[in-house]
């Protein structure tokens, strides 16, 4: 028996051959006792695998899985401010046009009102979610790729998030994600920029007890409970993240 026979037998056992190929393969196998034995082995192993139960997620696992993607999407400041900037730009445009047209005697009633223009700007989540032009220090998308994705994660959360009851494993995963956000947005390339942002941001602080322990200014990401104890999660510079217990001010988990 040769390697090509092995491959033939593997394909035959899996039903991957056409009817003509199957017929020819069966003839080959029938003339070779070792091939017949091998086919029986292959079929038996395949049958064993197929006897395993269908795997499905439990409800708990499914909720954990969705938890990661369901988190409110955090975006960089320029994306978060896009609706407001759009509204402001709309206001300036409408006001300017109004003044111009009033001056020329046109019918103002045909123009959109300021509130309509603002509403349009706010009602465009897709455009607001489009990536802003790359700022200095932020990586461009890979050459040849058009960045169309809304992007999952950003620098700072729009507000503290409530992660609910967390297991240690959940917390580990979360901290890893929080830390990796910096990498995903290319900010690990510019730690200085992140640190500046941390210094400017009103939320860039940590409780005094953590400051005393040498934890640098950090962005407060959210809260949750671990074994019934309230905890808070922070994103730190240098691709790190930390969770501490509010009652004892102990660091209960960190990444890395």
């Amino acid at each position, binding site marked *: 028996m040769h390697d090509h026979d092995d491959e033939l037998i593997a394909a035959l056992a899996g039903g991957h051959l056409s009817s003509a190929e199957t017929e020819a393969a069966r003839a080959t196998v029938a003339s070779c*006792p070792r091939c017949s034995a091998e086919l029986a082995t292959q079929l038996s192993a395949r049958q064993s695998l197929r006897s395993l139960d269908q795997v499905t997620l439990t409800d708990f696992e499914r909720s954990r899985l969705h938890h990661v993607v369901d988190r409110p999407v955090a975006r960089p400041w320029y994306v978060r401010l896009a609706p407001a900037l759009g509204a402001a730009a709309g206001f300036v445009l409408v006001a300017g046009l109004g003044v111009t047209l009033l001056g020329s005697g046109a019918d103002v009633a045909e123009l959109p009102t300021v509130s309509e223009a603002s509403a349009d700007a706010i009602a465009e989540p897709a*455009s607001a979610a489009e990536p802003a032009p790359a700022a200095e220090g932020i990586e461009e998308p890979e050459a040849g790729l058009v960045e169309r994705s809304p992007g999952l994660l950003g620098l700072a959360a729009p507000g503290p998030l409530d992660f609910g009851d967390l297991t240690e494993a959940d917390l580990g995963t979360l901290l890893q994600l929080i830390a990796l956000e910096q990498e995903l947005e290319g900010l690990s390339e510019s730690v200085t920029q992140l640190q500046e942002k941390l210094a400017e941001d009103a939320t860039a602080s940590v409780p005094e007890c953590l400051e005393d322990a040498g934890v640098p200014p950090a962005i407060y990401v959210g809260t949750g409970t671990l074994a019934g104890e309230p905890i808070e999660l922070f994103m730190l510079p240098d691709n790190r993240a930390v969770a501490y217990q509010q009652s004892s001010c102990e660091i209960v988990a960190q990444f890395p």
Partner: protein
Amino acid sequence: MTEEDRPTDEGLLDRYLSGDSDAFHELMSRHEDRVFSVCLRIMGDRESALDATQETFLTLYRKANRFSGRSAFTTWLYRVTVNTCYDQLRRIRRHQAQPLDESPQVDDPAQQDQLGAREVRQEIEAALARLPPDFRTAVVLVDMEDLSLKEVSDVVGVPVGTVKSRVFRARRLLAESLGNLAPPSVHPIGDNDA
């Protein structure tokens, strides 16, 4: 909704890329069990499989724009899944100073009578887990997920012949582990087995 009205995976992906986040959730709901199943068979335990599944969907979420449409969406999804599992396995291997949890032992005699079929399944799962990752992936995709040899070749990025060979050897190792090797009844003269 009839099957014809049901949006295709590619259509959902396009909608997601246009900013419709519900489309992503539909895509995820459609495939999460299948992705988890592959991850579980490759990783060997539910916790690692769930991590790998999360990572797979995060990759999909972030890099959906990289799907070029040259292959079926499911082929691409399997590819991301398998690569994610391999990454996780490498990571686990790096941290394998601590022994992994063994399968739980059942000592309760009252449960012993339920063990028959379950023990067999556990043996098969254990035998599968002992296979080299490349063999395991090939046999899981072919024999459990019913992918064609060509699809598996696209997913793992090796020629079809290599897939066949891996499947053959994986099944043989499994049969050996399970004590299911079929003995040849006759040894023909001059059969030079390689």
